[in-house]
């Protein structure tokens, strides 16, 4: 087994992984029907959430003001990037709370709660939404802590294996490396399993006993944590076996497979591997992980080497490590830059958001680490080679510091996985902007009356039109018998689509125009019925995009 064959195998695995995974990203809600804080006139037959990607529902329900689930919902139906919740019971007029929690392919549960109202203006939601909108639970931190343990132990395990393959000369310090590798592999195995249960508990936002509920685990099993564990646990078992076979004749085949599978288990879950383009990100993340594992795995054996072997022998090991380390550092930095670039989308995003701030912290720590490594290589290793006994002690000191730094860096990396990257935030922001900037306003005067129209979103599809009719003194006409809007799009041969308005009081009328399905300059005629038989007609043209 050579380095080349490892590379080939890992590349094959990456191809396999990237072809079997759809394009994942951090899921964000782009829109919904009804919209947040929207007033709808009729009880909706279904509620729709629109995401930027495929999501799996954890729960999705509509509550009344007392927090009771209402609407007799049917099964949640996924439809492309939409989730549809059919309601079998009409909602009486009033204010409701839509609440959902979904899991995206990167295993991050996301959820929000917002209000809407049926048939009447919304009641004050501020207290209600605050109490339920909080989506972080103690489980969120448990998941993060477990992930930290998993990352550390998996990388240490894979790193130990890598070290024995690449650096260790049989019999030198490989034994201690193997011992450490076995321990971390066992912890990692438990951690892989625990991730499923903790992930499930986070999804259901369960109580203290949630970890012992079957439903919790079945939730976790449904997420990408399962394929991760399905690859990762066998990898750990293979490595435990390989470590158990002793260092005299290392099982290079088993070690290689174990390393590749261990790294692969991280590619099916988490942020970076789920960003598009998948093939690029999966490759780059894999390289990043290999490089980190190599470095992390080498620290302990190097520490041991300098403790047990004589200075010259230790110096030889250090030199060998240093040669590999140059490539490893290069790959680490390069892959790190690519990952950051994809997640940040622009250098300016390094600042002013939580993800960027976390990344900056990580970069600072990495720079310190690189400085230490440089000191090791340029000052301490030559000293060791010359047989300087104090060099060994100094190297051990820097290795201890490096361990500390790694723990910090992994911690920061964990916090990054809990933060929404600017890439996903931008999608959400664009959707928010679209909601705000959408719409078209028009005002038409005729026969002493005026009609103010507000059309949202003024895009092909269903549009909401709010109309206020005012008299010549500018006062809203509250005595209208009826209001109708007739739509025409002569260019598309559409004529006289008539939609009735709903009286909202205070001279305001609400019209849902579902038929504006073709973009173009629609002619809208608003017929305001001053009496049952007498009407005032206002005409205006509305550009629908």
């Amino acid at each position, binding site marked *: 087994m050579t380095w080349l064959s490892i590379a080939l195998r890992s590349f094959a695995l990456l191809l396999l992984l990237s072809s079997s995974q759809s394009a994942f990203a951090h899921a964000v809600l782009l829109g919904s029907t009804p919209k947040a804080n929207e007033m709808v006139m009729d009880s909706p037959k279904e509620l729709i959430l629109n995401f930027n990607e495929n999501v799996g529902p954890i729960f999705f329900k509509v509550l009344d003001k007392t927090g009771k689930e209402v609407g007799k919902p049917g099964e949640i139906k996924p439809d492309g990037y939409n989730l549809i919740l059919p309601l079998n019971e009409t909602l009486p007029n009033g204010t409701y709370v839509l609440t959902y929690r979904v899991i995206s392919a990167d295993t991050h549960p996301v959820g929000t709660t917002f209000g809407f109202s049926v048939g009447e203006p919304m009641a004050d939601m501020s207290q209600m939404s605050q109490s339920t909108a909080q989506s972080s639970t103690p489980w969120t931190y448990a998941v993060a802590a477990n992930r930290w343990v998993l990352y550390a132990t998996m990388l240490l395990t894979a790193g130990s294996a890598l070290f024995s393959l690449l650096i260790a000369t049989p019999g030198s310090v490989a034994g201690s490396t193997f011992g450490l590798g076995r321990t971390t592999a066992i912890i990692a195995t438990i951690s892989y399993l625990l991730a499923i249960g903790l992930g499930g508990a986070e999804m259901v936002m369960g109580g203290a006993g949630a970890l012992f509920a079957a439903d919790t685990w079945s939730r976790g099993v449904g997420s990408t944590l399962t394929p991760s564990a399905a690859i990762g646990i066998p990898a750990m078992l293979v490595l435990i076996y390989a470590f158990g076979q002793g260092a005299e004749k290392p099982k290079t085949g088993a070690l290689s497979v174990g390393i590749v599978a261990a790294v692969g288990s991280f590619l099916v879950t988490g942020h970076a591997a789920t960003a598009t383009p998948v093939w690029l990100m999966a490759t780059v993340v894999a390289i990043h992980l290999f490089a980190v594992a190599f470095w992390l795995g080498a620290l302990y054996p190097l520490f041991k080497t300098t403790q047990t072997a004589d200075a010259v022998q230790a110096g030889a090991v250090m030199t060998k490590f240093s040669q590999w380390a140059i490539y490893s550092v290069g790959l680490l930095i390069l892959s790190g830059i690519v990952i950051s670039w994809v997640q940040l989308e622009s250098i300016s995003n390094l600042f002013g958001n939580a993800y960027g701030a976390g990344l900056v912290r990580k970069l600072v720590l990495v720079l310190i680490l690189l400085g230490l490594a440089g000191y090791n290589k340029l000052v301490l290793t030559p000293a060791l080679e010359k047989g300087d006994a104090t060099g060994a002690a100094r190297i051990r000191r820097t290795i201890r510091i490096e361990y500390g730094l790694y723990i910090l860096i992994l911690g920061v990396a964990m916090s990054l996985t809990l933060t929404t990257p600017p890439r996903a935030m931008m999608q959400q922001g664009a959707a928010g902007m679209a909601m705000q900037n959408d719409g078209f306003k028009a005002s038409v005067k005729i026969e002493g009356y005026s009609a103010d129209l507000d059309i949202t979103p003024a895009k092909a599809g269903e549009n909401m039109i709010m109309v206020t009719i005012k008299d010549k003194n500018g006062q809203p006409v509250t005595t209208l018998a009826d209001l109708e809007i007739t739509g025409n799009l002569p260019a598309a041969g*559409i004529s*006289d*689509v008539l939609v009735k308005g709903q009286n909202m009081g205070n001279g305001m009328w609400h019209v849902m125009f579902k*038929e504006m*399905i073709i973009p173009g300059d629609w002619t809208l005629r608003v017929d305001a019925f001053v009496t*049952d*038989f*007498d009407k005032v007609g206002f005409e205006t043209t509305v550009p629908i995009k």
Partner: protein
Amino acid sequence: MKKLLLATAAAGFCGLFVTTASAHDTLTNMEGYAGYVTDFEMRVTHGCKGSPVKEVRVKIPEGLTRISVGANRDWKVETKMRKLDKPVPGDGGNMLTEVVDEITWKDPASPIPAGGVFEGFKFRAALPKEVDKILFFRTINVCETGDDKYVDLPKEELKVNDPDFPKKLMGFMTATPGPSPFLITRKAPKPQYPWEVAEPAKAEMTTQQKASAN
């Protein structure tokens, strides 16, 4: 291509309304002799987008007098009155100070099915004496779901003696979403009732009368 498909789908979708709306409420006779007391039948030919009709309201145009509503055992009939600016002679030589402004047929034994059949609503009125006048009978069908309003008037006044009148009238009937049912007054060939002429003709005495007079 996608746009074309959309357009086709939309045209078909909207065509649905156009076809169902092609036959609206109309008066069975769209012409009448000026000054004649005339029978009307308002025909309701379909429901509102598939919903049965449960109420019909007709606004009587100005200039009509002596309005009476035909008996109807299936519908409850209500009339709303309107004060006249100046009194007009009634049926029996009395003077009328108000006329029927609106007739409502409601609470039927069973509603008019949404399609396939029509129902006629009868009333009677004296037409104004003005010839070639277009009278619009604005009508509202109230359905179990929604309503249809045939209350639209021509955008520009239609003149019967305009050479383009037939074309313009057709345009009004077909291109307007909710055209009001209408009737055109025509010049009567003779007075409706002989006793209505200013100078009643002296009736020739029959032989019997002559004999008795002698």
